[in-house]
């Protein structure tokens, strides 16, 4: 059934790719036609040129930002899941802690970042802390809901079969929570990147551990707008790759059974 598969793929990928190419072409044409100065809006070709010229420093910056992102994301997963387990142990614990988790979530990270950077001596640690704080909440709330959302019929079945607490946790609660957990991961992966970039902006770290935010700031000071666009482009790509990776992980883990990952059968 290759022709059908081919046409299905074509239908999936052609529209967004075509749209992207059309937009880039229009952008390029507009820049040339109206002779827009490079320091206002650079044409895609100029951005690409700058990207290639500054590739080594941009990729080093990307590496630095991704390092913060990944450490923060991993920390958010560990802390988030542990907190969720704590929450489902008792309603009292959840009631006493949940409002503060919400406060953490609603306070804009830009507002806390300066404080954290003053309080925490090591800048790298401060960056990780900022990114973790912003990535944490979706994992806590989703995993908590997931661990609580258990089919009551199955819960009864486990009771009739005299399942132990551990058996119920491993065979019922955790599998039930997985779809929610993965939805949380998808949101958090993007937030960890945003948190890392925002924290870098506030910290304004230069030197060897400078991240993409610093590249953008520096380009701004130097009015090197094409390089700014190139750095922005890298951040966006990193975010998209993270999202796709999480979606892939979720599909791999739930593909066999969960409706959200179910492929539409012809």
């Amino acid at each position, binding site marked *: 059934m290759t022709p059908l598969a081919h046409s299905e793929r074509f239908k999936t990928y052609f529209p967004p790719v075509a749209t992207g190419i059309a937009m880039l072409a229009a952008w390029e044409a507009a820049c040339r036609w109206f002779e827009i100065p490079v320091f206002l809006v650079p044409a895609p070709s100029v951005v690409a040129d700058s990207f290639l010229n500054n590739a080594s420093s941009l990729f080093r910056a990307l590496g630095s930002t991704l390092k913060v992102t990944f450490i923060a994301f991993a920390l958010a997963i560990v802390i988030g899941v542990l907190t969720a387990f704590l929450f489902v142990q008792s309603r009292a614990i959840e009631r006493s802690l949940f409002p503060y988790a919400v406060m953490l979530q609603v306070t804009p990270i830009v507002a806390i970042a300066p404080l954290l950077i003053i309080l925490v001596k090591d800048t790298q640690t401060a960056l990780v802390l900022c990114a973790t704080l912003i990535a944490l909440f979706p994992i806590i709330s989703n995993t908590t809901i997931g661990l609580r959302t258990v089919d009551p019929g199955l819960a009864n079945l486990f009771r*009739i079969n*005299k399942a132990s607490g551990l*058996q119920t946790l491993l*065979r019922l609660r955790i599998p039930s929570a997985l779809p929610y957990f993965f939805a949380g991961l998808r949101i958090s992966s993007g937030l960890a990147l945003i948190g890392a970039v925002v924290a870098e902006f506030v910290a304004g770290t230069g030197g060897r551990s400078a991240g993409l935010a610093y590249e953008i700031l520096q380009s701004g000071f130097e009015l090197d707008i094409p390089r700014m666009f190139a750095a922005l482009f890298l951040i966006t790509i990193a975010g998209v790759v993270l999202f796709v990776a999480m979606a892939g992980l979720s599909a791999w883990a*739930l593909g066999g*059974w*969960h409706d959200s990952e179910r492929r539409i059968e012809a």
Partner: protein
Amino acid sequence: MAAAPLPSPSLAMAPAEAAPAVEILGVDKVFADGTRGLTPIDLTVAQGEFVSLIGPSGCGKSTLLSLIANLIQPTDGRLLWWRGGFDKVGQPGRRLSIVFQDATLMPWARVEGNVRLPLDLARMPKDEAAPRVDEALALVGLSSHGRLYPRQLSGGMRMRVSIARALVTEPDMLLMDEPFGALDEFTRNRLDSDLSELWRLRGFTTIFVTHSIYEAVFLSTRIVVMAAQPGRLFREIEIDEPFPRGDAFRTSAKFADYCRELSVALMEASLASGRGRDR
């Protein structure tokens, strides 16, 4: 199918004289919000019987089943399982299984994993469990479907998986809460026939909650009609028809007579229940 070894010789025949599988002694249930689920009920189900509970909505038949499954506790009175407490249930000769209204399968586990669940929970080694899972799947006619996920099955097949899961422990008593209520008439009749045959061959005591007059008459050795407000036992009807029962019984005059008798009993139960059935 090879006849399975029966847990005790007494249950092969003559259910009326057999030892009680479950005794409900003066049990009543008042819910937390003050509504009375059941007035004191006395009911004994002997080993090997097939008893159906039928009655208007709110008559407490599902509550009664939950009490027998020990999922809820009686407000007063007590229950005995094989003349013992619930703590002994699960030992050889005292195994209890349940089939719910929905198949309640674990969507993340394959059919064989779902059927194996009760054995896994009893910590039976996988190599010992595997042949029993195969046998249970064969009993419900799903031998070739073990590797599939529940969502790949039809509603009737899911219910069969649910029954296989209940049978895999070789239960001495099977509780069924309107198991085929959500299925179409044709599928329901087929599953009824299969269940009747399984019951005949395996000899497990069955307590079966249903809304269907035809189903109750076809399957049961005894039907307990319940009335609502408050939930109570209203009448008992013995179905005196030998097994195996086939389509010949379903279309016989005797079947029609029993259905009429049960229908009348149900109507009276509805009238005796605080309000009419159709209001």
